[in-house]
C-alpha cells in the first residue's frame, strides 16, 4: 500500500504561503483565513506546526479583525462573516492564544446573528444555512460563551432540517448532504443534543456513501471525493458508527489522491491538489488512526490536545 507522504505535504503547505500572484491566490484572496486554518491544522496533525512563526500568524489574523463589530473577515480589508470568524478563533486556539481576543465582543457578534427561529445568518445580509449554525456553536463553545445564545432554539432549528433518510440539509426540506450533516451533527454533539439523531438510520445512510473505489461521496449517485473522508467519517464517529465502513479501502483511496512528487492531496486520483483537500485527506486519515498522526476532534475540527477544554 502507498504511504502518507508527510514531509512533502508539509513542504506543499508551506509553499502556498509564498505564492501570492497566481490565479489561485486571487481566487483564494477573500477566504485566505479559511486556507490558513486548513493549512495550519494539517501541519499540526503532521506534528509540524513549529515550522511557522506563531507571532506572525497571530498578528495577521488580528489584522482581519473588525474591532467595531467583533467579527473577522476572510482577509485584511474584507467584511466580517461567521465563516471567517470561526476560522480565526480556531487558528488562535491552535496556538493556545485565545487570550488575544476580546471573547466577550466576538461572542456578542456571533450571538447577534441568531434569528428568531433559532437559525443563524452568516452575516448582516441574512443568508441562512445550517453551516452557520455550526460555525456559531463551535465558535461560542471554544470561547466558553454558549450561554450567549438560545441553545434550545438553535438545536430545534437544526432538528427541523432532518430528512427521511436520517440526514440533514441546509434549510428545512433541503436535500441531505454529507457536508451539511457534519455541520448539524457537530453542532448537536457540541450542545449535547445527539439524542435528536436517529443514529442507526443516519449511520446506514452515511456508510452507503462508500463507493466501489473505497472513497466516500456526499450524496447518492455522486462521485467519491476526498473531502467526504472528513465530512462523512467525522459524522460517523460522532454518532459512534464508524466501524460500519471499510477503513482499509478508504485509506487506500485517500493515499491514492496524493501528489507523490510535490505534495498535497487532490479531490480525486490524478486531479490537481489544493490545501483544503490536503486537510480533508490528512484529517480523514487521522480519524482512522493512521500511524504517526495527531488525533483530531471530530466536532471541533481541531487536534484533540487543542480541543481539550
Amino acid at each position, binding site marked *: 500500500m502507498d504511504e502518507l507522504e508527510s514531509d512533502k505535504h508539509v513542504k506543499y503547505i508551506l509553499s502556498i504561503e509564498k505564492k501570492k500572484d497566481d490565479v489561485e491566490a*486571487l*481566487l483564494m*484572496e*477573500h*477566504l485566505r483565513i479559511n486556507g490558513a486554518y486548513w493549512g495550519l491544522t494539517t501541519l499540526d496533525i503532521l506534528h509540524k506546526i513549529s515550522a511557522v512563526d506563531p507571532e506572525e500568524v497571530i498578528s495577521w489574523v488580528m489584522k482581519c479583525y473588525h474591532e467595531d463589530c467583533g467579527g473577522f*473577515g*476572510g482577509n485584511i*480589508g*474584507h*467584511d466580517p*462573516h461567521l465563516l471567517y470568524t470561526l476560522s480565526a478563533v480556531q487558528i488562535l486556539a491552535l496556538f493556545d492564544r485565545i487570550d488575544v481576543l476580546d471573547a466577550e465582543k466576538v461572542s456578542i457578534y456571533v450571538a447577534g446573528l441568531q434569528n428568531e427561529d433559532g437559525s443563524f445568518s452568516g*452575516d448582516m*445580509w441574512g*443568508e441562512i444555512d445550517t453551516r452557520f449554525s455550526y460555525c456559531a456553536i463551535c465558535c461560542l463553545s471554544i470561547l466558553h460563551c454558549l450561554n450567549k445564545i438560545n441553545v434550545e432554539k438553535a438545536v430545534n432549528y437544526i432538528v427541523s432540517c432532518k*430528512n*427521511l*433518510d436520517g440526514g440533514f*440539509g*441546509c*434549510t428545512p*426540506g*433541503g*436535500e*441531505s*448532504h454529507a457536508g451539511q450533516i457534519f455541520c448539524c451533527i457537530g453542532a448537536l454533539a457540541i450542545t449535547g443534543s445527539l439524542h435528536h439523531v436517529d443514529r442507526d438510520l443516519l*449511520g*446506514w*445512510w452515511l*456508510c*452507503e456513501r*462508500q463507493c466501489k473505489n473505497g472513497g466516500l461521496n456526499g*450524496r*447518492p*449517485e*455522486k462521485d467519491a471525493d476526498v473531502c467526504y473522508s472528513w465530512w462523512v467519517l467525522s459524522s460517523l464517529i460522532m454518532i459512534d458508527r464508524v*466501524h*460500519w*465502513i*471499510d477503513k482499509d*479501502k478508504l485509506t487506500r483511496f485517500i493515499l491514492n489522491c496524493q501528489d507523490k512528487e510535490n505534495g498535497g492531496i487532490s479531490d480525486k486520483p490524478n486531479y490537481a491538489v489544493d490545501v483544503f483537500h490536503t486537510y480533508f485527506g490528512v484529517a480523514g486519515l487521522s480519524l482512522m488512526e493512521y500511524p504517526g498522526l495527531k488525533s483530531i476532534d471530530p466536532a471541533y475540527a481541531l487536534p484533540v490536545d487543542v480541543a481539550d477544554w
Partner: protein
Amino acid sequence: MDYFRAVYIADERSHRSLSLTTEVIHLNAGNYTVWHFRRLVLEALNVDLCLERDFIDRLAVRNSKNYQIWHHRRWVAEKLGTEASERELEFTKKILDLDAKNYHAWSHRQWVLQALGGWQNELAYCDKLLQYDIFNNSAWNQRYFVISRSPLLGGLRAMRESEVGYTILAILANPENESPWRYLRGLYQGETELLVSDNQISEVCLKILKTNQSSVFALGLLLDLLCYGFQPSGELRGVIESSRNLEAGSADSNLATSICSILEAVDPMRSNYWGWRRSRISSQVC
C-alpha cells in the same frame, strides 16, 4: 482591485462604484465584500432590480456553485416580490438543465416556492426530471418536499397511496436505485405499522428477489419489515432460504438472521453494519 478598494473605503455609492464592482465580480465572483458593497450601492442609487437580475442571469451559468451569486439572487428576488416567482423558477430550471443536482439551485428553488409561491407545476417538474434520470436523488428529495409541504396537495397522508404506486414502479424499473427505496420508507415515516401491513411493500421486495436474490435494498427493507413484526409468507421464506443456501451453505435459525448473513456476503464493504443488524435481532422476530 485597487480602485475598488479606494471607493469601498471612501464608501462612495455612485454609478462609477457600481461599474467597478461589476468588473471585480467578473474577476472573482466569490469576493463577498464586493457583493456586499454592490448591494449598498444598488440601494443608494435605487437601480431597477430587473436589470440586476439580468446581470446575475448572465453570470450564474458560469458560476453556478458560487454561494455569493445565489445569495445575491435571493436578495434581488425578495425585493421584487411574488411577481418574481415565475422568473426565479425558470432561472433555477435553466441551471438544473445543466446540472440537475446543483445544491444551490435546489435550495433557491425551495426558498422561491415557500416565499414567493408557484407550486402549481412543481410535482410535474419533479416527474419530468425523474423521467429523465430516475437516479436523481435531488429530484426525489424535491418530490418529498412538494408532497409534504405544497399547500395545494393536502399533505403526505393524502398523497401516500398514489406516491407508493409511483415509487414501486420506479423500484421495479431500477431495483439498485437507492433513492426510491428510501422515499418509500419516508412515505410511512412515523407509521411503521402501516408500512408492515401494506402488502404492496413486501410484494415489491418479493418480486425483486425472485429475479435478483442478492438485491441489497430489497433484502434491507425486508429485514426492517421483519424487525417491525412482519409475518412472511411461505413463498417469501422459500426465496430467502434458497438464496441463503447459495450464499453460505447452511440455514440459520430464523429468516431475519438469514437475510443478514446474505447481506454480509453480498455487500462486503458494509459487512460490519449487516453483522451488527444480525446481532440485534430479537428472538421474537421471524
